[in-house]
């Protein structure tokens, strides 16, 4: 449905038509920014990744392959940029103790719903990067299995395995929270 209209907008954007450029930004930047935010748990870094993703897209538009799907391409570029940043962070923090993410309430404060949601956001970002990506794409952003697998450049079976492991980790943390509450 959006495919042919995307192609039209891509052609016009490549020619420098500002309305088409704005259309593509408004259509795809929220999802790209959301993916990067969930992965990095840092708004500023997520914006940097989003901007770099779009800069790469602008360069790619003049030679755009009509069969390629812009949404998948943008998500894949953004995801790879997130992986790069997470790896660099990990290298930098190698000597430091890893941050323990917990959904448990502090002894004297019961977590309210918003705190719990924040803790879940933090817990997603703390998952191994591919698990975090699979979970964000499928469970949070609602991409289909095929789309998510294509973005991650893996098969659907591998995606399912990553999703199961991600959910298991999060459920474990939630159970601990309930036990402590």
């Amino acid at each position, binding site marked *: 449905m959006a495919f042919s209209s995307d192609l039209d907008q891509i052609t016009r*954007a*490549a*020619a*420098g*038509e*500002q309305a088409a*450029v*704005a259309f*593509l*930004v*408004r259509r795809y*930047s*929220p999802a790209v*920014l*959301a993916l990067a*935010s*969930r992965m990095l748990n840092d708004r500023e870094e*997520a*914006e940097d990744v*989003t*901007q770099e993703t*779009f*800069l790469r897209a*602008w360069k790619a*538009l*003049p030679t755009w392959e009509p069969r390629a799907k812009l949404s998948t391409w943008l998500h894949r570029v953004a995801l790879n940029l997130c992986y790069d940043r997470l790896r660099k962070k990990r290298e930098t923090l190698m000597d430091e103790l890893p941050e323990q993410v917990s959904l448990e309430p502090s002894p004297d404060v019961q977590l309210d*719903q918003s705190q*719990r*949601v924040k803790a*879940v*956001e933090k817990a997603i970002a703390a998952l191994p990067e591919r698990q975090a990506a699979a979970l964000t794409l*499928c*469970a*949070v952003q*609602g991409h*289909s*299995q*095929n789309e998510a697998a294509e973005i991650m450049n893996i098969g*659907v079976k591998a*995606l*399912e*395995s990553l*999703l*199961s492991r991600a*959910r*298991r980790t*999060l*459920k474990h943390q*939630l159970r601990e929270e309930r036990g402590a509450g």
Partner: protein
Amino acid sequence: MMTDERLLTLIAAYGADPSAYPEAEQADARALLLAAPERFAEAIDGEQSLDALFARLPEIAPSEAFEAKLIASGPVSARTEKRARSWGLRWPAIGGALASLAVGLTAGLTVAAPASASDTTAEEVDTLVMAALGVSDYDLIQEGEYE
């Protein structure tokens, strides 16, 4: 054909809601869940709270300023670029002309100011009036007017 094992795998990967499962398997998954809910109740229950938390995650949207920044980073049409370039080329010429004008005015005012512009103008007017009356400079000199 949906098996118990496959349905449990789907629940573990995609959660409690069959609409999140691969499209080709949704109908069979729903049918099996309806046929034997007790066999999957524990698995479903375990995923429901997680699904609810995911649904409550706040939406992340770009600010207007950030959106504008992304748009501004986009490709520029050849015509717009040409116009910008041509203005870029014209500005030095326009600037030069304005600078010359300013220098000219300043110089004109500075140099012309000591001279008595009104005297010169008055002489010219007198000459014109005399000429109109048929009196030339020569006649006035002859009559000792210039002495």
